[in-house]
């Protein structure tokens, strides 16, 4: 145990470029170049095809991939600040569209915002136990207390559940991405925390793209027609299977064996689906199609990271339990 924790504190200096990570960074941009060329040529061959949305989405993917790679490959401090900012923007977006919070609660929201730097500081320090308990234990005590200090009780139980849940989703979930960076390399596994981070982000986003693509190509049977009419069983199963295959091929980014990586990737795909439909349901409740309009073609920040907020902790805790805790 002690070994693991001492690793957290001094491994931050040990980040170094390694071939596994570089291969996947190359792969990401390779896919983007391929997609851009594909849509360009497709548009030339068949000018009637309506590719505007796909092209816009691809442009936004270029932007997001560049920011993501720039934020993770260089300095670890930049990564923590970037993920913190991502949490902040996601929380702000969720708080802005949420109608379930009373006007009095705006002053309590400041505590939610302030929790972000604390959570990311704990992640940066690699204080595993505090990192895991800060939001679900300490903030879950603090926020209801701050709410009752506002002096009114009408509708307070709703605020008591909405605010901490928003925090869990946007801050606790996403901060696991940053926390992965503090995980050390193991024997026979060189990619380290960066490899894990790249793996989870790549699998989750590919799963989103594959579920979308398979659904468009083969989709017939709707899976949750009342919540997300575009989701089909064909898209879901196609996404899970494709993600499992991609996970099998990219297992070298993780300490998992190839078979384990395949099973875990299938699980990631399933939990990504859950994150996606949960945010869809929230949007439906509010009556909006997108949570914002900051990313052209995709919508808001939340529309893009809804699945990551769920897959990151799921993946982290599986890998941590299997390879870091008991070794």
């Amino acid at each position, binding site marked *: 145990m002690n070994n693991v924790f001492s690793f957290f504190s001094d491994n931050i200096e040990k980040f170094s470029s390694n071939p596994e990570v570089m291969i996947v960074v190359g792969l990401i941009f390779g896919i983007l170049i391929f997609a851009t060329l594909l849509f360009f040529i497709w548009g030339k061959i068949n000018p009637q095809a309506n590719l505007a949305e796909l092209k816009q989405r691809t442009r936004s993917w270029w932007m997001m991939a560049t920011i993501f790679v720039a934020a993770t490959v260089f300095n670890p401090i930049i990564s923590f600040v970037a993920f913190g900012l991502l949490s902040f923007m996601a929380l*702000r*977006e969720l*708080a*802005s*569209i949420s109608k379930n919070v009373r006007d009095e609660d*705006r*002053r309590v929201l*400041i505590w939610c*915002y302030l929790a972000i730097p604390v959570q990311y500081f704990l992640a940066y320090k690699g204080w595993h136990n505090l990192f895991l308990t800060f939001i679900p234990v300490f903030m879950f005590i603090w926020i209801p207390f701050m709410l009752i200090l506002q002096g009114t009780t009408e509708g307070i139980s709703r605020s008591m559940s909405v605010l901490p849940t928003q925090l869990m989703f946007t801050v606790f979930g996403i901060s696991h991405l940053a926390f992965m960076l503090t995980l050390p390399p193991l024997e026979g596994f060189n990619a380290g925390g960066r490899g894990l981070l790249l793996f989870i982000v790549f699998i989750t986003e590919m799963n989103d793209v594959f579920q979308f693509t398979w659904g468009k190509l083969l989709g017939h049977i709707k899976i949750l027609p009342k919540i997300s009419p575009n989701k089909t069983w064909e898209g879901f199963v196609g996404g899970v299977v494709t993600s499992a295959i991609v996970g099998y091929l990219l297992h070298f980014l993780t300490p998992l064996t190839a078979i384990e990586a395949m099973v875990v990737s299938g699980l990631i795909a399933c939990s990504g689906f859950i994150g996606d439909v949960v945010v869809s349901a929230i949007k439906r409740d509010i009556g909006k199609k997108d949570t*914002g309009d900051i990313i052209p073609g995709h919508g808001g920040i939340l529309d893009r990271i809804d699945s990551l907020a769920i897959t990151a902790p799921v993946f982290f805790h599986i890998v941590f339990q299997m390879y870091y805790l008991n070794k």
Partner: protein
Amino acid sequence: MKRLILSLLYCVLMRGFLKVIVGVVYRNREAIKKVPQFVLVANHNSHLDTMALMSACSPRMIAKTHPIAAGDYFGQSPIRAFFTRFFVNAILIPRSRPKQGEAGPDPIELMSEQLDKGHSLILFPEGSRGEPEKFQKFKRGIGILLDRHPGVHYIPVFMKGLGKSLPKGEALLIPFNSLVVVGDPRKCKSRDIDGIVQEVEAAIRALSVETH
């Protein structure tokens, strides 16, 4: 010098702060650059409104753009008046015109003077900050002003969400996503004062419909 300070303050620092921290998204901001002189008219819910509109201007225009502020509120103390005049580049005016026989500056004259110089104005025809997402009755001043200067373009702007981030009577800024929708510059078509007021109000309301 003032132009440099204002450019740095609004086009770099304030714009960055509003976009990254407060979560302001501008729509059609380029429209402001289309005309050399304008009267920006917008709904008013928050002190952030002026900040958001000043930050929407280009560095070229910023020193020549004056928000119109109520003299009784922003001129309370000499220090406050100085800050409002220098750092917000504002023109302080009395809330109403002097009645016949009364002495004192005429707000319309003060605004007219700036337009004669070729400068631009930022004006909130609702007068003071109202409740978020609700329009108050527009004052007639905008009509009188545009009636006197038929050649000056006005630019309608609708802002949503800033009243939630920093409402009237609150000192604590809490970030919420907000939207600033800029309309295209236009000259008023009506020839009478009430018609102009109605026209401007309708233009801002039309932008508010786009945000739903």
